[in-house]
């Protein structure tokens, strides 16, 4: 029997894939908001300097993710309240990213130095939330490693495409490296095939190949509601709660995250 994240005791979850456009940010939005609608206390962290998660939920003039890394590097006593936008939705807070030049402003060496303080910061923050869901950028650098290291588990969104599956190999290797370096048992909990289109023959080929994998694999269908959701800054629960895509994310949340029996 495959355990849900709750059953595994995992609460800090990074949504990661080094390939872009596979639905990482969209998945963070729908999962984090879906969990919060079920009464779970959720913090979404925008760990992608592109700041699309922040753009979606909006932000007040608070310090952002980049500033957090700098303060952690300075060894300052960091006050989470200075970074977190409270209640972007009921029960849902966000730690925003606004510094699109973060990779130029903070060197890789500095980010590596921030690994342990960031781990400790998130572990402490985790006491105030049921879930911390982290969005990451589509690359393979110390920044993504910082996020994965601090996580209990990783969920990988991908598409029914060979390049996307190829990217999966790299992210698995990255998670294994993070596990080794941090000494934490970081699990790849599940895969989410996004943009599923039943009419495509190759989709069935992927289903045949992946259906024997021993981790949970979910599909989320390609949906106009998701595109509309992102354009209008409304979650799928707000703009298409009865859509197939909403039903697909419901399964991710209920079976992947919350299931207890």
């Amino acid at each position, binding site marked *: 029997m495959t355990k849900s994240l709750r059953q595994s005791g995992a609460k800090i979850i990074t949504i990661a894939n080094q390939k872009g456009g596979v639905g990482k940010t969209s998945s963070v939005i729908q999962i984090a908001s879906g969990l919060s609608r079920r009464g779970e206390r959720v913090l979404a962290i925008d760990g992608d300097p592109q700041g699309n998660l922040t753009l979606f939920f909006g932000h007040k003039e608070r310090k952002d993710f980049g500033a957090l890394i700098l303060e952690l590097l300075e060894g300052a006593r960091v006050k989470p309240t200075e970074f977190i936008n409270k209640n972007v939705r009921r029960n849902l807070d966000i730690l925003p990213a606004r510094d699109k030049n973060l990779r130029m402003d903070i060197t890789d060496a500095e980010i590596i130095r921030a690994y342990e303080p960031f781990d400790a910061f998130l572990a402490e923050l985790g006491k105030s939330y049921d879930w911390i869901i982290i969005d990451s950028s589509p690359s393979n650098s110390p920044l993504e490693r910082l996020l994965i290291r601090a996580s209990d588990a990783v969920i990988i969104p991908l598409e029914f495409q060979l390049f996307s599956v190829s990217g999966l190999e790299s992210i698995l290797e990255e998670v294994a490296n993070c596990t080794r370096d941090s000494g934490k048992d970081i699990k790849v909990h599940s895969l989410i095939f996004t943009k599923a289109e039943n009419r495509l023959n190759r989709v069935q080929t992927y289903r045949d190949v992946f259906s024997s994998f021993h981790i949970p*694999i979910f599909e989320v269908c390609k949906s106009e509601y998701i595109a509309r959701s992102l354009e209008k800054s409304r979650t799928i629960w707000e703009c298409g709660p009865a859509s197939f895509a909403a039903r697909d994310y419901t399964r991710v949340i209920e079976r992947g995250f919350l299931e207890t029996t």
Partner: protein
Amino acid sequence: MNTKKARNRLEEMSELISKTLDTDEARNEPMYEYSASYSEPANRMILGSWKVIEHTVKGTPYAETFARSAFSVNPPEDISYEATYEFNRNMCVKRVLICGLLPIDGRKVAYEYRMNTVLLWDIRGKTLSVQPVTGYQFTSIDGKPVSVRELPPNSEWLHIKASVSESSLVLEDGEDVKTLGRTKA
């Protein structure tokens, strides 16, 4: 890149990935959740075990038709008939068991007929195509084997009208109609 090459590369990659993932999670059951937008195609829905609930030939129960065709005089009485189909990904195992009491010399003795067949199968739309690959027939009377026959492979595909739903499968081969119920997914 052609489809076959792409599939081969996908299989190679997924094998590596699967190995990486299957650490202590190896004991987990596979859990693949299709999108809610996906309606099961017949070839997936038919997978699993099925039991014949009703089987008639020209409206007459199959067991009676069988008994009359096997024995022109004194056919077996009190006949019971069981048939199951087990559809796996590439093949189907069909098992038939007919039991009854055969009147011989003023007494009734046990009659048993078994047929087990392995079939290749494919379903397209409403047509189930099957090709017998191997099998055997076995008959015993009064507990003693009287006939064992290996069934030869059939080079031709047989085409049967089929309609499958979540819980029932109806197979129509002319006037031979079987209604099956699911016993195991």
